[in-house]
């Protein structure tokens, strides 16, 4: 919708010079139009098909979870020796996915990586939805989820009755909730100016009212802007150690135990790298889909994809190196149990998982050294899928192969997932994509104000004085 007002000003449209992070040469008004378009237009068939698929998956998952909660954990394939498998695998997987979002929005902000601006909003959204999926699993993996509130140290009349502050699972509770809260705040604060924009360009009606409420009366005052940028920096500065702490703590669920294959100090950095790696895999998947689905090739350019491909290559190599380190440590420390665990990991009944994982996580990303691959959307899409598979398997391998053959051979067993577990995993993907598809319809999936700001900077880099500093695309 264009107002008569806009028409009268059309003649004074100013053309800014070429910008390297945007294709074409949209004016500020065009930026607003492009980003706001999908929010007004009726979704296309592609979107509806995706949504139908996602929602079906979500329903399947809901069914499986209800059945499990109503009947008992026994409907899963776990047993006396393997107490965790799909449940915690999915948990770690989704948490990892979430981290790329924070990384893109916070860490790259601190590093002044301007290429993040067109993808950070959707990346943050991805974070929030991924953390929601992740938080589901610690809840439903409990034998008595209706007593989940026991993990909260609330004042109670049961005489001194607190929680165990030594338990990594409790650390998880705090880490995940903090992470979710801070990410939500960061995400919402980032959208306030865009809500204002949407408010002011929509005629009176429910839409204007809603945007009005959401925009909290934002009017673009410079003083607010100046505080606003401080706030963004502060939040980014908080989120950066936070994201590292969260996955370190997740890794401590394993590192703190005495189980060979879990008990290793390597885990925190190894897990964080893996998380970023898997996260970027998922971001690639999503953006490659959405940019074609929402026709945003102008803003999510091949150069964005290439930059992400480089991060993927870096983190993927760290992950591969961690695999080597694990085996080296096992060999080095000379304990029978540790060595056996890794021997069986590579040769035992789950060896196929292990080798698939190595292929997807350590070997596959090496093709990204080639610029031709980095700039091929199709190749990147395939690779991003491989990354997702590989990283899911990594968690599965770590959890199940370490558990199923631990200290006493008399307790060695095999674990086989049931259809319910598979359904729950599918359901978590359903939840994630349902949320994401709704997000790209209902909220500005690209931070308009940041694009505009960078548009200014790019046109007159000398004003910013930091043109392309630390620009990965140049490195």
């Amino acid at each position, binding site marked *: 919708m264009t107002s008569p007002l806009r028409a009268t000003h059309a003649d004074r449209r100013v053309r800014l010079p070429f910008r390297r992070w945007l294709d074409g040469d949209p004016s500020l008004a065009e930026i607003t139009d492009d980003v706001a378009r999908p929010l007004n237009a009726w979704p296309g068939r592609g979107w509806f098909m995706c949504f139908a698929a996602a929602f079906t998956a979500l329903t399947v998952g809901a069914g499986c979870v209800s059945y499990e909660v109503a*009947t*008992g*954990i*026994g409907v899963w*394939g*776990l*047993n*006396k*020796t393997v*107490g*965790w498998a799909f449940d915690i695998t999915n948990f770690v997987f989704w948490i990892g996915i979430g981290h790329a979002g924070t990384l893109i929005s916070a860490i790259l902000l601190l590093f002044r990586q301007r290429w993040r601006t067109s993808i950070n909003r959707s990346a943050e959204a991805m974070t929030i939805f991924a953390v929601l999926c992740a938080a589901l699993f*610690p809840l439903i*993996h*409990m*034998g*008595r*989820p209706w*007593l*989940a509130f*026991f*993990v909260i140290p609330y004042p109670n009349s049961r005489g001194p009755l*607190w*929680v*165990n502050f*030594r*338990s*990594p*699972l*409790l650390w998880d*509770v705090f880490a995940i909730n903090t992470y979710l809260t801070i990410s939500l705040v960061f995400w919402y604060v980032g959208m306030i100016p865009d809500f204002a924009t949407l408010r002011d360009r929509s005629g009176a009606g429910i839409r204007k009212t809603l945007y009005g409420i959401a925009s909290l009366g934002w009017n673009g005052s410079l003083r607010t802007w100046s505080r606003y940028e401080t706030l963004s920096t502060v939040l980014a500065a908080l989120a950066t150690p936070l994201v590292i702490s969260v996955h370190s703590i997740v890794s401590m*669920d394993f590192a*703190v*135990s*005495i*189980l060979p294959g879990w008990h290793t100090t390597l885990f925190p950095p190894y897990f964080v790298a893996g998380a970023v790696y898997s996260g970027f895999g998922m971001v690639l998947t999503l953006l490659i889909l959405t940019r074609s689905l929402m026709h945003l090739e102008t803003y999510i350019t091949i150069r964005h994809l290439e930059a992400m491909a480089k991060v993927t290559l870096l983190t993927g190599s760290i992950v591969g190196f961690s695999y080597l380190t694990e085996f080296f440590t096992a060999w080095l420390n000379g304990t*029978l*149990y540790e060595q*056996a665990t890794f021997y069986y990991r590579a040769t035992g009944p789950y060896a196929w998982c292990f080798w698939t994982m190595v292929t997807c996580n350590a070997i596959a990303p090496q093709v990204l050294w080639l610029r031709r691959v980095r700039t091929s959307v199709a190749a990147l899409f395939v690779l991003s899928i491989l990354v997702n598979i590989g990283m899911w398997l990594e968690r599965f391998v770590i959890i199940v192969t370490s*558990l199923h*053959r*631990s*200290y*006493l*051979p*008399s*307790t*060695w*067993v*095999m674990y086989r997932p049931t259809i319910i577990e598979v359904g729950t995993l599918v359901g978590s993907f359903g939840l994630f994509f349902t949320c994401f598809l709704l997000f790209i319809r209902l909220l500005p999936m690209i931070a308009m104000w940041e694009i505009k700001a960078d548009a200014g900077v790019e046109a007159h880099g000398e004003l910013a004085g930091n043109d392309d500093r630390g620009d990965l695309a140049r490195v």
Partner: protein
Amino acid sequence: MSTELKFWKSVDELRMHSAAQAGAGRDCFAGQRATTGPPPAASRRDFLTLAGFSLAAAAMSACSRGRVQKAIPFLNKPEELTPGVPNWYASTCGGCSAGCSLLVKTRDGRPIKVEGNDESPLFGGGTCAVGQATVLSLYDDERLKRPLWRGSSASWEDVDQRIETHLAEAIAAQKRVVLLSRTILGPTTRHLIREWTARPGFEHVTYDPVSFTALREATRTSFGVDGLPHYRFARARMIVAIEADFLGTWLSPVEFTRDYAAGRRPENTTGMSRHIQFESGVSLTGSNADKRIAIAPSERALVALALYSRIARKHGMAGLPDVPEGFIDPRPLDAAADDLWRTRGESLVVCGADDVATQVIVHATNALLGGIGTTVDLDRPSLQKQGDDVAVARLIDDMERGSVDALIVYGVNPAYDYPQSDRFIAAMRNVPLTVSCADRLDETAAQAHAVCPDHHFLEAWGDAEPVASFFSLAQPTIAPLFDTRAAQDSLLKWLGRAPDFYEYLRGYWRETLYPQQSRYATFDEFWDHSLHDGVFALPAGPAAERRFAGDVSAAAASIVRDHERSAGERHADRFEVHLYETVGQRDGAHANNPWLHELPDPVSKVTWGNYAAIAPAVASRLGISSGDVVALDAGTRRIEVPVHVQPGQSPRAISIAMGYGRRRAGRVGQGVGANAYPLVQVVAGMRRYAGTSVTVARTGRLEPLAATQTHHSMEGRTIVEQTTFAAWLAASSGGHGEHEPQVEVPSLWAGRPAGAHAWGMAIDLNTCTGCSACVTACQAENNVPVVGRDEVRRGREMHWIRIDRYYTGSEDDPETLVQPMMCQHCNNAPCEPVCPVLATVHSSDGLNQQVYNRCIGTRYCENNCPYKVRRFNWFEYARNSRFDFNMNSALGSMTLNPDVAVRSRGVMEKCSLCVQRIQAGKLTAERDGRPVADGDIETACQQVCPAEAIVFGDLSDPNSRVSTLVRSQRRYRVLEELGTRPNVSYLAKVRNA
């Protein structure tokens, strides 16, 4: 236990009370009051009250009927019942033919646990898995609730009237009335049956599902003794067993285990006894032997003969039969013979073979070794297994011929367990009147005209004489749950006598036993003390001179003949079947008992069903692996069972357990496994349990075995530590491997202040045979649910204690090691810090506690437990039709221990070291105003262990038994290098090289 016995106050009070009970109350017993104090102090009062109790109980059991859980209106609390305080009654186990003496624990008037009677000179405080499970059979939904006539329920009067008229006509018409019964251990019942057979035309045939006729016959011909030798393993320093699973299923496992274990302690001044086992399948006993040699069933006789001739040569005898050898490596035979000879007088050869000749040879060997009178007691022979195969065969012929007018079946089920059961069933149809006294509508009862359900032994009066002049009494511990009647009462009734077996019992004891003793002045005193103690033994008479009078050469000749005859069948594609009893199922009588089905076989660790055990070499040759269902074809008979590849199995033999494949056992039991009895051969009336030649064919079907352990090697880890006796003697430093037990792994933490106690446990791997009685005892004590075959297949059995079994050495001739494994109650427990809600924490006295109410079921503790002893409630196991076992029925739930919570779904559980018993012990001590003494508190697994391999106690008391054991040089703790500091210690296994 006896210190915990409760006594009554006075006869009068009791009589009044019983009268009141008879009117108002239902099943609860008259006459018990919980006062404490050791028996000697109260023996007088004891005697009076017991007398009163007997009358009352007799009266009660006659008049009271109904469901016991409604029985006790605590509005007017029966004086003798204190809620929360158990009453103990001495009784005798009816689980198998061994007749162990028991103490029965009752709570609120219902038996919930049986324990061995310490005062029994034969059995001690131990019991076996079957004995432990009998209490569950009492509360079996499938028991008959009332008599049946032609399949429809009838009144006792009606049934009795029909039977009595028929018997009267039979007597009048000079027809034959046959009572077919199991071996009768009870002297009184035997006396009753003598009266029965005194009637013209009335006969009695004894039938044992698993026959010992051969041994019996051999003993008769060799020594002129009517009975089985009473083997005294405690006196044997050298034991050679040929296919005799005397620790698991053979004759009297509890007694033998106790005696055997006594000789297996390396600390004994006399040293440790040696044990060599020749057998085809891997039995519990074989797995404990110093050396086990796998032989084909057909070679047992040859082994016996070879041993005999070696001993005879040493004895300087001449003219020995030449034994075909070369079928087996002679060295172990020589070694065995040397050891036997060196320890002659203290050596013992036992044999489970089912042909007379072999047993004669074995008797001859024992005679040469001077074992008669020492290790083989014939003065006071064992009175078990009096069954007579030939008589049974003849009876069936007569029935077929129609010359039997009435058949009364008591305590046996030949329609299931007779090899030619179809013949028996057909024959029953030729008998005008067939009466069964079965407790359920089993295979035989289903064919009978009348079913007169017998009491469960916990409901009935009785006595037993398992070994001559060793008596044990049985008294009701609960009034009959259903409208059943003791079989003895039935017999009395049909004899036209007053159906009051209690009086009959007292009468017999008054007439027969009382005169033979001199200790008590009056019969009542004698009776009450016997009833209180549960056991009574007559002093041993002068030892008679027993000479071996058997015909060795004839026996040898027949053995050689058999060997040559069977030579034709010994080629690659034919195998010899070896039928055996399992520790859990025995002959199949308890097939509806879920505890016993869930009990893992001590060696194979398989639950819920039988299988064909095949040697690894054979399996690979035939391309069969565990779980493949094979068809075993013996020509006329053919059964299909899944395969279990058993290391150590004789490549010539296929072992199959009997006692499975019941068709009419009840919901739980029927259709579990395959019935192997049809593979028993009947040769000239004698049942042969081995040697049947079969071919093996794959069916293509797959039936995964439900095994609780699927990996059998220790992978070079020091988990079960073992050494040789010589090495142990030599190395003063414990010497079980390079492992150094006394070194404590340094801890990062200062440690916590010590509590009042430090509960701990020591398990002697040398005396532990792996019999698994502790598993069932724990299940009974701690309300451990049964999960069923599918869940066991998924690796979700709930047992709090398990017996880990490892093989070492080659697949064909492995050495077996067992290790009871339960929560190790680590002082630095890995499971504790990881629980987010503090649902598992450490008590001040060293227990690792699980707080069910707080547990939210994250299973993190399970993952972090290096011993993997934690058990998760994957489902709601109680009151859940999905798990239709005892916990799903109101009746079955009566066996639950009220002192232990029934866990809900979603919580973790594990061994609590019987914390309820610890509490009880502490409370008793506190009430008596004394510190807890060593031995006050026994865990269920410790109490049940016939080998006394498990010792629980206070580690902070330097003089407690457990402390002394912990100071032993054999002591080590599993995975202690992890720094978990377990409170459970193990004493390393010592074997003779």
